[in-house]
């Protein structure tokens, strides 16, 4: 089973990178840009047929390693 995980900074946490990227895009003439948030992305494939249990395992991976829960939020999606 394949899942994707997106990890983004929590709302109130300073995002210096996002700020610089946004300014640069605007300077490059992308005036319609309203907001850009960035984060990390993982595509994870696991050997597990049962969806809830698979999801649970992905959740464990996020909590144990992939996500810094102090400053980041995450979302899991099933891909296939």
């Amino acid at each position, binding site marked *: 089973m394949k899942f994707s995980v997106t990890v983004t900074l929590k709302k109130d*946490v300073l995002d210096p990178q996002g700020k610089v990227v946004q300014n640069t895009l605007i300077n490059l003439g992308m005036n319609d840009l309203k907001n850009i948030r960035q984060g990390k992305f993982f595509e994870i494939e696991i050997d597990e047929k049962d969806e809830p249990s698979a999801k649970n395992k992905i959740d464990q991976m996020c909590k144990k390693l992939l996500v810094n829960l102090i400053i980041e939020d995450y979302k899991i999606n099933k891909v296939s």
Partner: protein
Amino acid sequence: MKISDTIIENHGLKKEEYKNIQKILKRDPNILELGVFSAMWNEHCSYKSSRIHLKKLPTKGKQVIQGPGENAGVIDIGDDDAIVFKIESHNHPSYIEPYQGAATGVGGILRDVFTMGARPIALLNSIHFGSPTHPKTKSLLNGVVSGIGGYGNCIGIPTVAGETKFNSTYNENILVNAMAVGHAKKTKIFYSKAKGINKSVVYVGSKTGRDGIHGASMASAEFDENSEEKKPTVQVGDPFTEKLLLEACLELMKDESIISIQDMGAAGLTSSSVEMASKGSLGIELELDKVPCREENMTPYEMMLSESQERMLIILEDGKENHAKKIFKKWDLDFVVIGKTTNTNNLTLKYYNKIVGEIPINALASNAPVYDRKWIKKKIPQNKIDIKKLKKTNLKEALKKILSSPNHSNKSWVTDQYDQMVMCDTAQKSGSDAAIIRIHNKDKAIAVSVDSSANYCKSHPLTGGKQIVCENWRNLISVGAKPLAITNCLNFGNPENKEIMGEFAECIEGIKEACEFLEYPVVSGNVSFYNGTNKKNIYPTPVIGGVGLINKLEKPLNHNFKREKSIIILIGKTFGHLEQSCFLKENYSISEGSPPEVNLLNEKNNGKIVLKLINKNFVLSAHDVSSGGLITTLSEMTINSNLGVKIEKPRKLRNLFEYFFGEDQSRYVLEIDPKNIIQVEEILKNGNIYFEKIGFTQKNFFEIEDEMKMSINELFEINNEWYNSY
């Protein structure tokens, strides 16, 4: 909002303190005012438990331009040059989020230094972790080291020295102390004292977010099982913006626009504005709706307590606003006039023209509570260890244990992650007793080192306090620098516990005695209490950061042996003090007994004469003898030099382990060219210095007559293995 008991408690205020607030205001505070009080009255900002003890430290000397009381201390290094430096702790935030905690610790201390008009030229750090086998240690070590590097490397200031130690006492409470050193022109130092009424108060730097709200109170509260929940208050550092802020501030400082300037550190806008007003005996009025905010709907409470990084408050001379604004715009930084100085002696907070808070400045600063907490003295532990009763070992095995231990292993795993060379003035990187930084475009240089000895301080705080100052002084001497002044970071447990308070009082007493005797004043520092969890406090860990001067840098002196057949001299008397030694700890897990005695008279004499020998160019390499004793010192001198040494058996019959592993103080090992030995001996004899010629350098082997012989390669491997396999 009604101020309930819970609210008061959540602000870290005691009932009596709240009553005091009511008395001062002659009414109940509103929540904003309560927040301001709590920020200013907590331990971190008010120094309420430490102030009466700190007063005892010697802070004067003809080299001192500015002692404690400003953002950083300032000393005179001759000509037009001044050195500005300070150390600060970021322990609690680093335990919660090691990367960001350590990074913002570096950012904060840098601001303290460039606020005073100095360009930072070096960073140091002292980091203490729990036992390597503790499940959290590895990730904390990784996070802290990359956080320190992440910030310093990006902003482009070399991280040149420090210490990395492990001890289970820090399992639940690591220590991250960062020190910054800057160079300024003596005539261009900037202070935080406000002057004049109706002057513009300007906010510059990053926008204000909800970071670290209540951070200062967090830093002053003991950890408990729920401390994980305090996580969202951790700030994120932005070294890129700090670099811009640094350059913009230094640019504005070139002319006469600034009356006073203060970084927003702990308790952000609150402490910076209050400090500036308090030092100038003025009032200050802030229009909070003008504060640049990162998030929508931020309240005045949040703005006053936010600990967003990379921000400064400046009071400008009349008419300089546009000029200053241009500079900050050039560097893409926010610049807003948010208030003015007043003659009311109040902190007046306005929000859309309405007064939302008003507090007398005095009540927040000079009249903040001060406690003379109960404390008890500690006796020198009497247990003597009879070495003959211990399980047999031999010199080689015992030495291997020490050199391969986490605390004595080669630290290049750590230091390779720091840019040590940027700015191109690092004449000596970390690895020796002290780093050497040349003053840009000049012949002179400074030497810097940070040191601590928690085991000694735990065993006998008074001796421990003296010992660290001496060790720090010795480290500077060992690279040929004249020690000038120190900064100190006092990391202790809960001050409400009388034993801990005793450790604090006595360490300070020890620091004081040593500093006075060595004429080595304290010019800045920081106190971090409440290090520990529940009832378990950390060992008392004062950290000393010293700065010394090398008048004319000809060749940086380090501790690597230079040639074959040089004569090795041991300066200072060896008594063989093994209690509290690394030998007993690493080989027998014994950590009882007293620390080695500190004789300030010998310390001073030995140091002065060693410095004299160095200045006369008689010394090829030098190393002070500290943790691990003589044999460890000698092996460190061989490991990176590719030269071995042959040490004769001690002439007087002594216990070999006491002789080679004893941690007696005031000692140095010097490498001397045989052709100079007569002159050297004469100087030593005239100076009344006890010394022994103990052997000579040789190729390839580390050897002790009749006892052991090891190849340098083997020593090197042993010393380099731990970090790489951790």
